[in-house]
Protein backbone atom coordinates (compact mmCIF):
# COMPACT_ATOMS: atom_id res chain seq x y z
CA UNK A 1 0.00 0.00 0.00
CA UNK A 2 2.77 2.41 0.97
CA UNK A 3 4.69 1.57 -2.22
CA UNK A 4 1.61 2.13 -4.35
CA UNK A 5 0.99 5.47 -2.63
CA UNK A 6 4.61 6.56 -3.06
CA UNK A 7 4.63 5.49 -6.70
CA UNK A 8 1.42 7.33 -7.53
CA UNK A 9 2.52 10.49 -5.70
CA UNK A 10 5.90 10.43 -7.47
CA UNK A 11 4.28 9.78 -10.86
CA UNK A 12 1.85 12.66 -10.35
CA UNK A 13 4.70 14.96 -9.26
CA UNK A 14 6.90 14.03 -12.22
CA UNK A 15 4.14 14.71 -14.73
CA UNK A 16 3.51 18.10 -13.13
CA UNK A 17 7.26 18.89 -13.13
CA UNK A 18 7.43 18.30 -16.88
CA UNK A 19 4.41 20.57 -17.23
CA UNK A 20 6.13 23.44 -15.41
CA UNK A 21 8.71 23.79 -18.18
CA UNK A 22 6.07 25.70 -20.14
CA UNK A 23 5.10 27.92 -17.22
CA UNK A 24 6.26 31.52 -16.79
CA UNK A 25 9.15 32.14 -14.36
CA UNK A 26 8.51 33.18 -10.77
CA UNK A 27 7.83 36.92 -10.58
CA UNK A 28 7.45 37.40 -14.32
CA UNK A 29 5.50 40.68 -14.74
CA UNK A 30 4.21 39.65 -18.18
CA UNK A 31 2.81 36.27 -17.17
CA UNK A 32 -0.68 35.47 -18.53
CA UNK A 33 -2.20 35.64 -15.04
CA UNK A 34 -1.01 39.24 -14.65
CA UNK A 35 -1.90 40.55 -18.09
CA UNK A 36 -5.61 40.00 -18.63
CA UNK A 37 -8.18 40.84 -15.96
CA UNK A 38 -6.12 42.17 -13.08
CA UNK A 39 -4.70 45.36 -14.73
CA UNK A 40 -8.27 46.61 -15.04
CA UNK A 41 -8.80 46.07 -11.30
CA UNK A 42 -5.53 47.72 -10.31
CA UNK A 43 -6.06 50.78 -12.48
CA UNK A 44 -9.76 51.39 -11.83
CA UNK A 45 -10.47 50.02 -8.32
CA UNK A 46 -9.46 53.21 -6.49
CA UNK A 47 -11.40 55.50 -8.82
CA UNK A 48 -14.50 53.30 -8.90
CA UNK A 49 -14.87 52.13 -5.30
CA UNK A 50 -12.71 54.52 -3.26
CA UNK A 51 -11.07 51.57 -1.48
CA UNK A 52 -7.23 51.68 -1.59
CA UNK A 53 -6.94 48.00 -0.68
CA UNK A 54 -7.60 46.41 -4.08
CA UNK A 55 -8.10 42.96 -2.54
CA UNK A 56 -11.05 44.23 -0.48
CA UNK A 57 -12.53 46.04 -3.45
CA UNK A 58 -12.35 42.94 -5.67
CA UNK A 59 -13.52 40.63 -2.87
CA UNK A 60 -16.64 42.52 -1.85
CA UNK A 61 -17.55 44.51 -4.94
CA UNK A 62 -16.33 43.13 -8.27
CA UNK A 63 -16.53 39.48 -7.23
CA UNK A 64 -19.35 39.83 -4.70
CA UNK A 65 -21.22 36.74 -5.91
CA UNK A 66 -18.18 34.58 -5.20
CA UNK A 67 -17.86 35.88 -1.64
CA UNK A 68 -21.62 35.61 -1.00
CA UNK A 69 -21.57 31.90 -1.69
CA UNK A 70 -18.29 31.35 0.19
CA UNK A 71 -20.06 32.81 3.22
CA UNK A 72 -22.99 30.48 2.56
CA UNK A 73 -20.52 27.56 2.50
CA UNK A 74 -19.16 28.55 5.93
CA UNK A 75 -22.73 28.80 7.23
CA UNK A 76 -23.69 25.39 5.90
CA UNK A 77 -20.50 23.82 7.34
CA UNK A 78 -21.47 25.13 10.78
CA UNK A 79 -24.99 23.74 10.26
CA UNK A 80 -23.52 20.36 9.24
CA UNK A 81 -21.44 20.18 12.45
CA UNK A 82 -24.56 21.01 14.47
CA UNK A 83 -26.73 18.36 12.84
CA UNK A 84 -24.03 15.67 13.01
CA UNK A 85 -22.97 16.12 16.62
CA UNK A 86 -25.58 17.91 18.71
CA UNK A 87 -27.36 15.68 21.24
CA UNK A 88 -30.04 17.21 23.44
CA UNK A 89 -30.74 15.91 26.90
CA UNK A 90 -28.70 13.98 29.45
CA UNK A 91 -26.10 11.31 28.75
CA UNK A 92 -27.75 8.03 29.76
CA UNK A 93 -24.46 6.10 30.09
CA UNK A 94 -22.90 8.73 32.36
CA UNK A 95 -25.82 10.32 34.25
CA UNK A 96 -25.55 13.83 35.45
CA UNK A 97 -22.96 13.49 38.17
CA UNK A 98 -21.81 17.04 38.91
CA UNK A 99 -18.52 18.16 40.40
CA UNK A 100 -18.21 21.31 42.49
CA UNK A 101 -15.14 22.98 43.98
CA UNK A 102 -15.30 24.83 47.29
CA UNK A 103 -13.25 27.90 46.43
CA UNK A 104 -11.80 28.89 49.87
CA UNK A 105 -10.52 25.40 50.68
CA UNK A 106 -10.12 23.78 47.26
CA UNK A 107 -12.13 20.69 48.25
CA UNK A 108 -13.99 18.95 45.40
CA UNK A 109 -17.56 17.77 45.95
CA UNK A 110 -19.27 15.12 43.85
CA UNK A 111 -23.05 15.38 43.67
CA UNK A 112 -24.79 12.17 42.60
CA UNK A 113 -27.87 12.31 40.35
CA UNK A 114 -30.80 13.70 42.28
CA UNK A 115 -28.56 15.28 44.93
CA UNK A 116 -29.00 18.83 46.14
CA UNK A 117 -26.82 21.36 44.32
CA UNK A 118 -25.00 23.77 46.67
CA UNK A 119 -26.37 27.26 46.17
CA UNK A 120 -23.56 29.52 47.30
CA UNK A 121 -20.99 31.71 45.51
CA UNK A 122 -18.24 29.80 47.30
CA UNK A 123 -18.94 26.74 45.14
CA UNK A 124 -17.88 26.61 41.48
CA UNK A 125 -18.93 23.86 39.08
CA UNK A 126 -15.94 22.12 37.42
CA UNK A 127 -15.51 19.61 34.60
CA UNK A 128 -15.31 15.85 35.07
CA UNK A 129 -11.65 15.84 34.07
CA UNK A 130 -9.98 17.53 37.02
CA UNK A 131 -8.61 20.99 36.22
CA UNK A 132 -6.42 22.86 38.72
CA UNK A 133 -7.64 26.18 40.05
CA UNK A 134 -5.79 28.59 37.80
CA UNK A 135 -6.00 32.24 38.81
CA UNK A 136 -3.25 33.53 36.51
CA UNK A 137 -4.69 32.10 33.28
CA UNK A 138 -8.24 33.22 34.10
CA UNK A 139 -7.24 36.77 35.04
CA UNK A 140 -4.86 37.29 32.13
CA UNK A 141 -7.36 36.12 29.52
CA UNK A 142 -10.06 38.28 31.14
CA UNK A 143 -7.76 41.29 30.70
CA UNK A 144 -6.69 40.52 27.14
CA UNK A 145 -10.01 39.47 25.56
CA UNK A 146 -11.47 43.04 25.27
CA UNK A 147 -8.37 44.15 23.37
CA UNK A 148 -8.58 41.15 21.04
CA UNK A 149 -12.22 42.00 20.30
CA UNK A 150 -11.39 45.68 19.75
CA UNK A 151 -8.68 44.64 17.30
CA UNK A 152 -11.17 42.36 15.53
CA UNK A 153 -13.61 45.26 15.09
CA UNK A 154 -10.76 47.48 13.83
CA UNK A 155 -9.77 44.84 11.29
CA UNK A 156 -13.35 44.67 9.97
CA UNK A 157 -13.85 48.43 9.83
CA UNK A 158 -10.40 49.29 8.46
CA UNK A 159 -10.41 46.67 5.72
CA UNK A 160 -10.60 49.36 3.02
CA UNK A 161 -7.21 50.81 3.89
CA UNK A 162 -5.12 48.00 5.37
CA UNK A 163 -4.93 44.21 5.12
CA UNK A 164 -8.01 42.77 6.72
CA UNK A 165 -11.73 42.62 6.25
CA UNK A 166 -14.71 40.55 7.26
CA UNK A 167 -13.09 37.13 7.11
CA UNK A 168 -10.03 37.99 9.21
CA UNK A 169 -11.91 40.16 11.71
CA UNK A 170 -14.63 37.55 12.10
CA UNK A 171 -12.07 34.83 12.81
CA UNK A 172 -10.33 37.06 15.40
CA UNK A 173 -13.65 37.80 17.15
CA UNK A 174 -14.51 34.10 17.12
CA UNK A 175 -11.07 33.22 18.49
CA UNK A 176 -11.62 35.58 21.43
CA UNK A 177 -14.80 33.71 22.41
CA UNK A 178 -13.00 30.36 21.96
CA UNK A 179 -10.17 31.65 24.17
CA UNK A 180 -12.75 32.53 26.84
CA UNK A 181 -14.24 29.04 26.58
CA UNK A 182 -10.81 27.41 26.95
CA UNK A 183 -9.57 29.58 29.81
CA UNK A 184 -12.76 29.61 31.91
CA UNK A 185 -15.01 26.73 30.90
CA UNK A 186 -17.57 25.90 28.25
CA UNK A 187 -20.63 26.62 30.40
CA UNK A 188 -19.52 30.18 31.18
CA UNK A 189 -18.79 30.83 27.51
CA UNK A 190 -22.25 29.47 26.64
CA UNK A 191 -23.66 31.89 29.20
CA UNK A 192 -21.96 34.79 27.40
CA UNK A 193 -22.68 33.69 23.84
CA UNK A 194 -25.25 30.95 23.75
CA UNK A 195 -25.98 28.42 21.07
CA UNK A 196 -29.11 30.20 19.83
CA UNK A 197 -27.21 33.50 19.63
CA UNK A 198 -24.43 31.99 17.53
CA UNK A 199 -26.93 30.23 15.25
CA UNK A 200 -28.97 33.40 14.72
CA UNK A 201 -25.85 35.55 14.16
CA UNK A 202 -24.51 33.04 11.64
CA UNK A 203 -27.72 33.18 9.64
CA UNK A 204 -27.99 36.97 10.09
CA UNK A 205 -24.53 37.49 8.60
CA UNK A 206 -25.47 35.69 5.40
CA UNK A 207 -28.82 37.51 5.43
CA UNK A 208 -27.14 40.95 5.73
CA UNK A 209 -24.94 40.13 2.74
CA UNK A 210 -27.77 38.82 0.57
CA UNK A 211 -30.07 41.57 1.84
CA UNK A 212 -27.62 44.28 0.78
CA UNK A 213 -27.63 42.73 -2.69
CA UNK A 214 -31.42 42.52 -2.79
CA UNK A 215 -31.71 46.14 -1.62
CA UNK A 216 -29.64 47.14 -4.65
CA UNK A 217 -32.20 45.30 -6.81
CA UNK A 218 -35.04 47.20 -5.14
CA UNK A 219 -33.28 50.50 -5.76
CA UNK A 220 -33.15 49.72 -9.47
CA UNK A 221 -29.52 48.63 -9.83
CA UNK A 222 -28.09 45.17 -10.47
CA UNK A 223 -27.75 42.59 -7.70
CA UNK A 224 -24.78 43.58 -5.45
CA UNK A 225 -24.13 46.79 -7.43
CA UNK A 226 -23.81 49.12 -4.43
CA UNK A 227 -23.91 52.32 -6.47
CA UNK A 228 -27.70 51.86 -6.41
CA UNK A 229 -27.62 52.50 -2.65
CA UNK A 230 -26.43 56.10 -3.14
CA UNK A 231 -29.84 57.73 -2.40
CA UNK A 232 -30.15 55.73 0.84
CA UNK A 233 -26.74 56.76 2.16
CA UNK A 234 -27.04 60.28 0.80
CA UNK A 235 -23.66 60.24 -0.94
CA UNK A 236 -22.45 59.92 -4.51
CA UNK A 237 -22.13 56.60 -6.34
CA UNK A 238 -18.42 56.01 -5.59
CA UNK A 239 -18.81 56.62 -1.85
CA UNK A 240 -21.92 54.40 -1.89
CA UNK A 241 -19.85 51.54 -3.27
CA UNK A 242 -17.30 52.09 -0.49
CA UNK A 243 -20.04 52.00 2.16
CA UNK A 244 -21.65 48.98 0.51
CA UNK A 245 -18.33 47.11 0.88
CA UNK A 246 -18.38 47.96 4.61
CA UNK A 247 -21.94 46.63 5.05
CA UNK A 248 -21.01 43.40 3.29
CA UNK A 249 -17.84 43.00 5.38
CA UNK A 250 -19.88 43.36 8.57
CA UNK A 251 -22.18 40.58 7.36
CA UNK A 252 -19.23 38.33 6.52
CA UNK A 253 -17.60 39.05 9.89
CA UNK A 254 -20.79 38.19 11.79
CA UNK A 255 -21.28 34.93 9.89
CA UNK A 256 -17.65 33.78 10.19
CA UNK A 257 -17.39 34.70 13.89
CA UNK A 258 -20.44 32.73 14.94
CA UNK A 259 -19.64 29.81 12.61
CA UNK A 260 -16.21 29.36 14.25
CA UNK A 261 -17.70 29.57 17.77
CA UNK A 262 -20.54 27.20 16.89
CA UNK A 263 -18.23 24.59 15.36
CA UNK A 264 -15.96 24.80 18.40
CA UNK A 265 -18.85 24.37 20.88
CA UNK A 266 -20.10 21.24 19.14
CA UNK A 267 -16.66 19.72 18.51
CA UNK A 268 -15.21 20.36 21.98
CA UNK A 269 -18.19 18.98 23.90
CA UNK A 270 -19.25 16.16 21.52
CA UNK A 271 -22.56 17.94 21.06
CA UNK A 272 -23.55 17.78 24.74
CA UNK A 273 -22.60 21.38 25.63
CA UNK A 274 -21.75 20.38 29.19
CA UNK A 275 -18.03 19.85 29.43
CA UNK A 276 -15.59 21.43 27.03
CA UNK A 277 -11.88 21.32 26.40
Amino acid sequence: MKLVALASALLCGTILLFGTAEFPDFGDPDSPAASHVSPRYIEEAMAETSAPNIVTAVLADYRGFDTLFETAVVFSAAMACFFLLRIFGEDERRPSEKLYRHLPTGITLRIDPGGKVPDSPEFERIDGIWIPHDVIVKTTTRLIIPFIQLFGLYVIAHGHHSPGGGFQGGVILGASVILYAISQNLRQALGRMGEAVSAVFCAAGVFIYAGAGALCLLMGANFLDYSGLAPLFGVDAIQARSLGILVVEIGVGLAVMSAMVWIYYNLASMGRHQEGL
Partner: protein
Amino acid sequence: MSEFIDFFVGKYNYWAFILLMMIGLYAMIAKKNLAKKIIGMNIFQTAIILFYISTAAKGGGASIPIIAHGHGHGLSEHGARAADYINPLPHVLMLTAIVVSVATLGVALTLAVKVYHQYGTLEEDEIADRIRAQTGGEP
Protein backbone atom coordinates in the same frame (compact mmCIF):
# COMPACT_ATOMS: atom_id res chain seq x y z
CA MET B 1 24.61 22.78 -15.62
CA SER B 2 24.08 26.53 -15.36
CA GLU B 3 20.98 26.13 -17.52
CA PHE B 4 19.66 23.67 -15.00
CA ILE B 5 20.39 26.08 -12.13
CA ASP B 6 18.58 28.86 -14.00
CA PHE B 7 15.65 26.54 -14.54
CA PHE B 8 15.57 25.59 -10.86
CA VAL B 9 15.94 29.10 -9.46
CA GLY B 10 13.51 30.65 -11.93
CA LYS B 11 10.79 28.16 -11.14
CA TYR B 12 11.53 27.16 -7.54
CA ASN B 13 7.98 28.00 -6.49
CA TYR B 14 6.62 25.21 -8.70
CA TRP B 15 9.13 22.75 -7.22
CA ALA B 16 8.02 23.62 -3.70
CA PHE B 17 4.35 23.38 -4.65
CA ILE B 18 4.84 19.97 -6.29
CA LEU B 19 6.83 18.66 -3.30
CA LEU B 20 4.15 19.75 -0.82
CA MET B 21 1.41 18.37 -3.05
CA MET B 22 3.21 15.01 -3.17
CA ILE B 23 3.50 14.97 0.64
CA GLY B 24 -0.24 15.63 0.95
CA LEU B 25 -1.19 13.05 -1.67
CA TYR B 26 1.04 10.41 -0.05
CA ALA B 27 -0.49 11.10 3.38
CA MET B 28 -4.02 10.85 1.99
CA ILE B 29 -3.35 7.48 0.33
CA ALA B 30 -0.88 5.69 2.59
CA LYS B 31 -1.74 6.78 6.14
CA LYS B 32 -4.38 4.62 7.83
CA ASN B 33 -5.29 7.09 10.59
CA LEU B 34 -8.22 9.34 9.73
CA ALA B 35 -6.71 12.40 11.46
CA LYS B 36 -3.50 11.93 9.45
CA LYS B 37 -5.58 11.79 6.29
CA ILE B 38 -7.22 15.08 7.25
CA ILE B 39 -3.79 16.67 7.82
CA GLY B 40 -2.73 15.37 4.39
CA MET B 41 -5.82 16.92 2.81
CA ASN B 42 -4.98 20.29 4.38
CA ILE B 43 -1.36 20.12 3.22
CA PHE B 44 -2.65 19.42 -0.30
CA GLN B 45 -4.92 22.47 -0.04
CA THR B 46 -2.15 24.80 1.14
CA ALA B 47 0.11 23.52 -1.66
CA ILE B 48 -2.46 24.60 -4.25
CA ILE B 49 -2.94 27.95 -2.48
CA LEU B 50 0.86 28.40 -2.59
CA PHE B 51 0.77 27.78 -6.34
CA TYR B 52 -1.88 30.46 -6.88
CA ILE B 53 -0.14 33.01 -4.64
CA SER B 54 3.20 32.48 -6.38
CA THR B 55 1.63 33.12 -9.80
CA ALA B 56 0.48 36.49 -8.45
CA ALA B 57 4.02 37.70 -7.60
CA LYS B 58 5.65 40.29 -9.84
CA GLY B 59 9.36 41.10 -9.90
CA GLY B 60 10.86 44.51 -10.52
CA GLY B 61 9.84 46.36 -7.36
CA ALA B 62 6.08 45.80 -7.50
CA SER B 63 4.41 46.63 -4.20
CA ILE B 64 1.62 44.95 -2.22
CA PRO B 65 -1.87 45.53 -3.67
CA ILE B 66 -2.79 48.54 -1.52
CA ILE B 67 -2.67 51.82 -3.41
CA ALA B 68 -0.27 54.23 -1.71
CA HIS B 69 -1.59 57.65 -0.62
CA GLY B 70 -5.05 56.58 -1.65
CA HIS B 71 -6.94 59.01 0.54
CA GLY B 72 -6.41 62.66 1.38
CA HIS B 73 -4.89 63.37 -2.03
CA GLY B 74 -8.12 63.03 -3.96
CA LEU B 75 -8.23 60.66 -6.86
CA SER B 76 -4.82 60.79 -8.49
CA GLU B 77 -5.06 62.15 -12.01
CA HIS B 78 -2.73 59.63 -13.64
CA GLY B 79 -4.19 56.61 -11.80
CA ALA B 80 -2.35 53.51 -10.64
CA ARG B 81 -0.07 51.66 -13.04
CA ALA B 82 -0.67 47.93 -13.25
CA ALA B 83 3.07 47.10 -13.21
CA ASP B 84 3.55 48.79 -9.83
CA TYR B 85 1.26 46.46 -7.89
CA ILE B 86 1.11 42.71 -7.39
CA ASN B 87 -1.77 40.93 -9.12
CA PRO B 88 -4.64 41.02 -6.55
CA LEU B 89 -6.96 38.49 -8.21
CA PRO B 90 -5.32 35.23 -6.98
CA HIS B 91 -5.16 36.73 -3.48
CA VAL B 92 -8.94 37.24 -3.47
CA LEU B 93 -9.64 33.73 -4.70
CA MET B 94 -7.31 32.13 -2.14
CA LEU B 95 -8.44 34.28 0.80
CA THR B 96 -11.92 32.83 0.58
CA ALA B 97 -10.48 29.35 -0.08
CA ILE B 98 -8.60 29.45 3.25
CA VAL B 99 -11.73 30.31 5.24
CA VAL B 100 -13.68 27.59 3.44
CA SER B 101 -10.84 25.16 4.19
CA VAL B 102 -11.21 25.73 7.95
CA ALA B 103 -14.97 25.16 7.64
CA THR B 104 -14.40 21.89 5.77
CA LEU B 105 -11.76 20.95 8.37
CA GLY B 106 -14.45 21.40 11.03
CA VAL B 107 -16.85 19.10 9.17
CA ALA B 108 -14.10 16.50 8.57
CA LEU B 109 -13.10 16.48 12.24
CA THR B 110 -16.77 16.20 13.21
CA LEU B 111 -17.09 13.10 11.05
CA ALA B 112 -13.89 11.66 12.56
CA VAL B 113 -15.21 12.24 16.10
CA LYS B 114 -18.48 10.59 15.10
CA VAL B 115 -16.62 7.57 13.66
CA TYR B 116 -14.56 7.28 16.86
CA HIS B 117 -17.74 7.39 18.93
CA GLN B 118 -19.21 4.56 16.86
CA TYR B 119 -16.21 2.22 16.51
CA GLY B 120 -13.78 3.29 19.24
CA THR B 121 -10.83 3.77 16.92
CA LEU B 122 -9.53 6.08 14.19
CA GLU B 123 -7.49 3.44 12.33
CA GLU B 124 -8.99 2.49 9.00
CA ASP B 125 -8.13 -1.24 9.14
CA GLU B 126 -9.48 -1.60 12.70
CA ILE B 127 -12.73 0.11 11.65
CA ALA B 128 -13.01 -2.40 8.78
CA ASP B 129 -12.45 -5.25 11.27
CA ARG B 130 -15.20 -3.97 13.58
CA ILE B 131 -17.64 -3.64 10.69
CA ARG B 132 -16.78 -7.18 9.56
CA ALA B 133 -17.35 -8.50 13.09
CA GLN B 134 -20.71 -6.73 13.33
CA THR B 135 -22.05 -7.96 10.00
CA GLY B 136 -20.77 -11.52 10.45
CA GLY B 137 -17.91 -11.80 7.98
CA GLU B 138 -19.37 -9.74 5.16
CA PRO B 139 -17.24 -6.65 4.58
